[in-house]
């Protein structure tokens, strides 16, 4: 029983990392209608910024805040100077551009910081706390809490502020938003920046566990995309729930299903997708897309 709870809590924490990445992907998709395959790569770049700052003796928490600022700028720059040219064109081309960006970032990080694994300092201690007779690691709880707080802040920004209202307007209908005088281009940059910041938080939290490499989040990206498919591209809450479900299920399957084990648990979300696709092609929480010809 204790082991089961431990697995669920750990699954919730990895699920939160996937959820943050998935939410970033949904954020970008709602604003610009494309899937950013470089979302994980950009996050890894921010993690490398934190790492090199701490190597210089900067305190971890300051380095993280600086890296979040860096990632907002990075997201905005990528939107303005790289993606804008392809946003109105063929979405397939835009996807290839993000894949090119992923290759570029991976190559850049590998060239500058080598492909070797780097030890990344952890925000939370590895000690466990006992709670009702069950011991769970502080890192798992901390990761989950931080990401949930980040999501709540983001939600408050979207619902409670004027900037959030403008961002939502651009996401729903860019053309009408432009007609009512909103600076659509600048708002898209803000959207990309926020998405990148969310990714950076996820990367910083998961880096101590995975150790830092240029391809650190490739697997997490796959999980996040699976969560996006399962939750439906139109439903942020659905995506977060799907990511948690994936995190918990893969942890349980790794331990309780002998064939899957730890090496094959990445297949779990895709078995899930296969089943869901046969029953609900629009995703668990998404709405069916109706198009007028």
């Amino acid at each position, binding site marked *: 029983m204790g082991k089961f709870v431990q697995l669920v809590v750990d699954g919730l924490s990895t699920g939160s990392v996937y959820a943050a990445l998935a939410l970033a992907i949904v954020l970008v998709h*709602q604003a*610009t*209608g494309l*899937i950013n*395959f470089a979302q994980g790569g950009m996050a890894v770049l921010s993690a490398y910024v934190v790492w090199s700052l701490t190597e210089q003796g900067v305190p971890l928490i300051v380095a993280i805040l600086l890296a979040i600022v860096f990632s907002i700028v990075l997201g905005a720059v990528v939107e303005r100077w*790289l993606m804008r*040219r*392809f946003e*109105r064109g063929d*979405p*397939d*081309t835009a*996807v*290839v*551009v993000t*894949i*090119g*960006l*992923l*290759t*570029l*970032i*991976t*190559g*850049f990080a*590998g*060239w500058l910081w*080598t492909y070797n694994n780097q030890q990344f300092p952890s925000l939370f201690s590895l000690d466990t706390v006992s709670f009702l007779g069950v011991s769970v690691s502080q890192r798992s709880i901390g990761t989950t809490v931080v990401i949930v707080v980040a999501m709540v802040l983001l939600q408050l920004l979207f619902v409670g502020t004027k900037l959030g209202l403008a961002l939502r307007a651009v*996401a*729903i*209908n*860019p*053309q*009408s938003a*432009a*007609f009512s005088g909103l600076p*659509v*281009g600048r708002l898209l940059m803000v959207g990309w920046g926020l998405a990148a910041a969310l990714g950076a938080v996820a990367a910083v939290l998961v880096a101590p566990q995975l150790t830092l490499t240029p*391809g650190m989040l*490739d697997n997490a*990206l*796959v999980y996040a*995309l*699976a969560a*996006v*498919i399962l939750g439906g591209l139109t439903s942020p809450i659905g995506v977060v729930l799907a990511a948690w479900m994936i995190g918990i299920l893969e942890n349980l399957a790794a331990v309780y299903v002998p064939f899957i*084990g730890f*090496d*094959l648990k*990445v*297949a779990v*979300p*895709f078995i899930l*997708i*296969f089943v869901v*696709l*046969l029953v609900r*092609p629009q995703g668990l929480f998404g709405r069916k897309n109706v*198009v007028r*010809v």
Partner: protein
Amino acid sequence: MASAPSNRASTSSSSLSSLRQRPWVRWAAPLLLVVVLAVLPLVMSEFVNETLARIGVFAVAVLGLNVVMGYAGQVSLGQIFFLGVGAYVTAYGVTNEWNIVLVFVLACLVPAVAGLVVALAAARLGGLAIAMVTIALPIVGVPLAKRLSEYTGGSQGLSARFAEAPEGSGLFDDQWQLYIVLVIGGTVFLLTRFLVRGKYGRAFAIVKGNENVASSMGISPYRYKVLAFTIASLIGGVSGFLYMVVIQYTSPETMSFGHSIELLAAMVIGGAASIVGSLLGGAFYVLVPQLTNQVDASLTTLLQGVILLVVLFVLPGGLASLPRALTRGRRRSGAERGAAASTTSPSSTLGSGTSAEEPETERQGHA
């Protein structure tokens, strides 16, 4: 006035096409190509032959990717997985001393069936979801290959030597291998050319262009997406067989995520929806790492990313569209000179690159 230079350009291109239509040219040109390809392996050095054979292997893999992505417009990030499956099936069959023809057939069929199953589920999702699902294939494929170590040899991989030159032919191994690649690869290229030029190719193009139009014309986008994906997997299997002929060794690393992305980059850089582009893509896949490894191996990925992005910006049609882009550029500059001479001619109709300068407020609605 302005039409004079473009007239000249069109007459020169029409004389070229009339040359191409003459019967003896239509027969002689392919014949010449075949003769050159038949002689080439005999006169080249071993290193050149091996490089050419590798290019052939990956050109076939890129061609498969081109069928699903270039022609049918479905982004696939999993093509390398089917190459890997084909290579593993070949290696397993050869080590168990099955008939080589049976091995070849299985190396085509097993990936095709795997592709069919994946496509049946993935194509249900519209748009970019196929890309999001197929990205999982290499990521799941590598640990799966390690896990099934009874069949795949685990992390150590499998090696199989079965493509030695037959006794009495007087050929070296590298020449014999290049001949196998040329014959099988050439056949695949020819068949694919017929496929994309015919009824199916036109159906793919409509599905790529607009799925709603396709279904209103009685062309089921779902069925054609599945078909394109299955054919791509089958061609991937063929390239896996050729991979074992040339490289003679496969491991889980063969189908890693990085290789899958490199393959996609090679296809876009070579030229999407182009047969020649697939050849150029294969050459890019093999030659660029060879060149950058001589400078600095850690730069390879960075350079591939840079080249891919530059090509997308400057030459979206890939290297295969370079001649066309050059003639268009020449014609346009000619027209601009003409426009300077006579103010009445609107040169803007020729400019296709004006969309980038449009004001930001004119965005298309995505929602």
